[in-house]
């Protein structure tokens, strides 16, 4: 017979006012299995907890019911107190007499009766509790960073600096992401290459970081602390050890008409290329779609030109399997193309370009070495119109959110235009200017006051071509909605920032949720912004929602801190309230019949199966097996199981049955 202790709290007046606490304590004394019952003014106070500890020793109690406030409040407190007294934490239950009884009912016998029922309910439950210990899950003390932009670079460096191994996977042939494409960065206008290149070199030189470029995550399985990741390292057709990066092969390639995605299609590149001059690693890649050799034609000029014979046309994709304890998603964003704007010509007007394309024009390493030109005839545009909020904050385009960074980079673009061509005219059509960062608004004011950029508050309804000029039809809502028509040489759309292409598939591979727009979903918008609902998978940067560089770096270091905290211990302690498949002696071995219908129901893919074999290895039975590291204890499988083979610690079938029968 169990020896239980019942402690009824007055909670000052909160419970005592409407529930006859002493009556409850008195009636509990006569409940079968209760060895000791008392009431006290403030059980959660130190003296209150000490009373419980003393009673445990004095009456050799093997279970405790504390009738007080909501377990969501002080369950941990009382469970810690009980452990101090040498009793297993999970042999202590809390009856909610305050929020669920005294505060919501008037003072009456029925209220006291209800309180007694609620205590009896927990008493019956505690009788069937089993002592449980926290689950220790071993951790692989290394991390995977997906994405080689500034977010991935910062996260990888921070984790590597804390002494843990990092594997970085970058889809394009080199690090840098979108930041490498930028000319100068707001609000200080320092050139992006100068602040990014050292970091990229650090990554390539860091002893703890294994850099896999031109590679993608193929498959992920496992759970926090124990992820198994298959990475596809696509064939570059260039042997990375032999290649010295001399660039001889780049000159010899006959195919010169491939649109260069690094320059956002503004210039052409060859079939063998390095994305940009300061690329890390500085090793070329053969683009098999456009290389003649791979279209069946005879050509091996690059191989002939290579002094170290590094070109290997027969290289194959490699699948690299790694084990990591944590994953950081830092896959960045993309900008909406001009083809998504019917009112601005469906992308058919060459001189209507995106912000990223303007960045390439403004960049010294760009197709025009930093001289702002226009795509149609290469002339330097006299009048340039910038359109803020192109596609963002526009339900018709399916992008209701504000892309956050465009107000700042639009002001920067206009400023750069004026710096490079003093008598050029820059107009910006805007709805509201959102420049809320440090020194941000001063930057925009400078563009307006010192550089003479004309800001027009209004939307542009249509752009059409006439005599080589772009007629921009808008309205100026500050001048009473006067229609405005500007004959522009070039129009730059500050188009919406969207989730990067392939973000959806990656999220599915990682079992990570995405929000309705396709950005990675954070665990909690305010309290857990760098974590995802899948334990052990963190996120940083614009993959979660549009974000500028300062915030991205901040978030990357935050994610790295979370990873370092996770990897700092060899084992991970987890709440033991998990489900378990029962086991029995031979010949049945378990109630489970191996139908495995629970496997598909588990939201955490925690249920696999195992084969029970006899001594010489032939399979006697296949039964479900629950991985305690992954199981979060929701109980969906427990109520699904037809043979009741699975039970949930803390909310077992027997316990709940007993609770029902105690009413």
């Amino acid at each position, binding site marked *: 017979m169990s020896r239980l202790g019942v402690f009824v709290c007055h909670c000052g007046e909160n419970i005592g006012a409407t529930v006859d606490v002493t009556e409850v304590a008195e009636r509990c004394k006569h409940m079968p299995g209760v060895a000791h019952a008392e009431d006290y003014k403030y059980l959660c106070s130190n003296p209150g907890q000490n009373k419980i500890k003393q009673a445990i020793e004095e009456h050799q109690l093997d279970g405790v019911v504390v009738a007080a406030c909501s377990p969501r409040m002080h369950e941990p407190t009382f469970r810690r107190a009980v452990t101090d007294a040498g009793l297993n934490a999970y042999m202590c239950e809390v009856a909610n007499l305050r929020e669920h009884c005294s505060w919501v009912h008037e003072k009456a016998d029925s209220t006291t009766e209800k309180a007694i029922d609620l205590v009896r309910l927990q008493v019956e439950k505690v009788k069937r509790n089993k002592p449980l210990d926290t689950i220790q899950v071993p951790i692989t003390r290394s991390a995977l960073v997906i994405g080689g932009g500034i977010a991935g670079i910062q996260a990888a460096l921070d984790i590597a600096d804390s002494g843990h191994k990092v594997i970085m996977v970058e889809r394009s042939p080199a690090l840098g992401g979108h930041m490498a494409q930028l000319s100068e960065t707001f609000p200080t206008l320092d050139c992006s290459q100068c602040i990014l290149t050292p970091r990229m070199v650090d990554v390539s030189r860091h002893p703890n970081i294994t850099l896999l470029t031109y590679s993608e995550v193929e498959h992920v399985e496992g759970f926090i602390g124990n992820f198994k990741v298959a990475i596809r390292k696509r064939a570059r057709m260039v042997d990375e050890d032999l290649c010295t990066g001399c660039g001889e092969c780049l000159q010899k390639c006959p195919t010169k008409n491939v649109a260069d995605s690094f320059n956002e299609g503004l210039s052409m590149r060859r079939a063998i290329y390095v994305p940009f001059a300061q690329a890390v690693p500085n090793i070329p890649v053969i683009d098999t779609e456009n290389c003649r050799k791979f279209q069946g034609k005879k050509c091996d000029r690059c191989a002939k030109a290579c002094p170290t014979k590094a070109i290997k046309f027969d290289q194959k994709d490699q699948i690299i399997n790694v084990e990591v304890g944590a994953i950081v998603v830092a896959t960045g964003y993309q900008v909406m193309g001009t083809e998504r704007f019917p009112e601005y010509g469906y992308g058919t007007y060459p001189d209507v370009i995106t912000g990223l394309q303007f960045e390439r024009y403004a960049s010294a390493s760009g197709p025009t070495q930093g001289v702002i030109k226009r795509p149609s005839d290469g002339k330097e545009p006299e009048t340039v119109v910038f359109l803020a909020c192109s596609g963002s904050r526009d339900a018709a385009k399916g992008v209701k959110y504000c892309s956050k960074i465009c107000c700042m980079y639009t002001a920067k673009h206009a400023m750069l235009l004026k710096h490079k061509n003093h008598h050029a005219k820059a107009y910006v059509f805007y709805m509201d200017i959102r420049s809320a960062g440090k020194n941000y608004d001063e930057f925009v004011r400078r563009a307006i006051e010192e550089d003479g950029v004309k800001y027009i508050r209004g939307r542009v309804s249509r752009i059409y071509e006439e005599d080589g000029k772009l007629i921009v039809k808008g309205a100026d809502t500050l001048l009473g909605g006067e229609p405005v028509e500007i004959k522009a040489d070039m129009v730059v759309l500050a188009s919406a920032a969207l989730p990067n292409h392939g973000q959806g598939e990656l999220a599915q591979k990682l079992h990570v949720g995405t929000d309705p727009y396709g950005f990675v979903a954070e665990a909690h918008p305010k309290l857990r912004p760098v974590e995802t609902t899948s334990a052990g998978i963190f996120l940083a940067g614009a993959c979660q929602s549009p974000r500028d560089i300062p915030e991205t770096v901040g978030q990357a270091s935050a994610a790295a801190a979370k990873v370092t905290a996770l990897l700092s211990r060899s084992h991970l302690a987890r709440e033991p309230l998990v489900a378990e498949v029962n086991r029995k002696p031979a010949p*049945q071995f378990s*109630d489970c*019949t*191996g*139908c*495995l*219908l*629970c496997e*598909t*129901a588990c939201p955490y893919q925690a249920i696999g199966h195992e084969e029970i074999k006899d001594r010489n290895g032939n399979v006697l039975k*296949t039964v479900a097996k629950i991985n305690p590291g992954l199981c979060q204890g929701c109980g969906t499988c427990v109520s*699904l199981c*037809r*043979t*009741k*083979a699975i039970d949930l610690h803390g909310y077992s*079938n*027997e316990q709940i*049955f*007993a609770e029902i029968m105690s009413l």
Partner: protein
Amino acid sequence: MDVLRNKARDLLAQGQVQVVIGYEAGTGGARRPSFVRSEADVARLVWDADCVGNLAGYLTRAEIKKMGKIAVVANAATLRALLQLTAEHQLAEGAVSALVVTEEGAVLELSNAQAVTEHVATLPASLSAADREKLDQLMALSREERRAFWEQELQRCIKCYACRSSCPMCYCGSCTMDCNRPQWVPVASHEMGNLEYHTVRAMHLAGRCVECGECGRACPVGIPIHLLTCYAEESVRRQFGQPAGTSATLNYALGTFRPDDQETFIR
């Protein structure tokens, strides 16, 4: 009839299968299962309109599995049961091949799940017209009348569990009824116990029942309990469109979900 026998003889002769489960003439013209293991006994096999029993129930028994490769004479419900059992990992792929006697009298040998799936797709639903009519009749009654009907029927249940042992989908080694810590369903065959047992069984077959009617035929006191499981299966098909026994990799309707499942009663 002899086409079937010849086929069985060949299979046994070539040792492709170790046993052919079919029907043989029972007492008083009834049909009962027969387990032919040698060519000599092949003559016992019969096939006609009375062969309605669902032989799939035997496929999950350990003693039968021990016999080695099995061929089973299959009607529509047996084929559906084969697929559902494969979907629930009770039958290994290709462990059982089905012998189907077509109207034209030819014998098809369906030896893998894919062949069975294609054949099942061509077959009509196996709920008999009488049962269909009975179900509609019951649904037309008011709640109180239905309560009275089932109370009166279930009162006669003696908890012999014949329905459970005859059902091909009730292969569980230990059933909820056998669980006594806690005692989910009262063992006694009083009304409460009977009602809860048949409710639990119907819920356990929702989305899994192949509507073969075997339980209704097996009930010694003649309760139409197959209507309960057929109704539960139909409810799943109507609401979630996932019919049981139509694919070897079917997702169990109550083990999966769609975020936009429509219902009208949740407040």
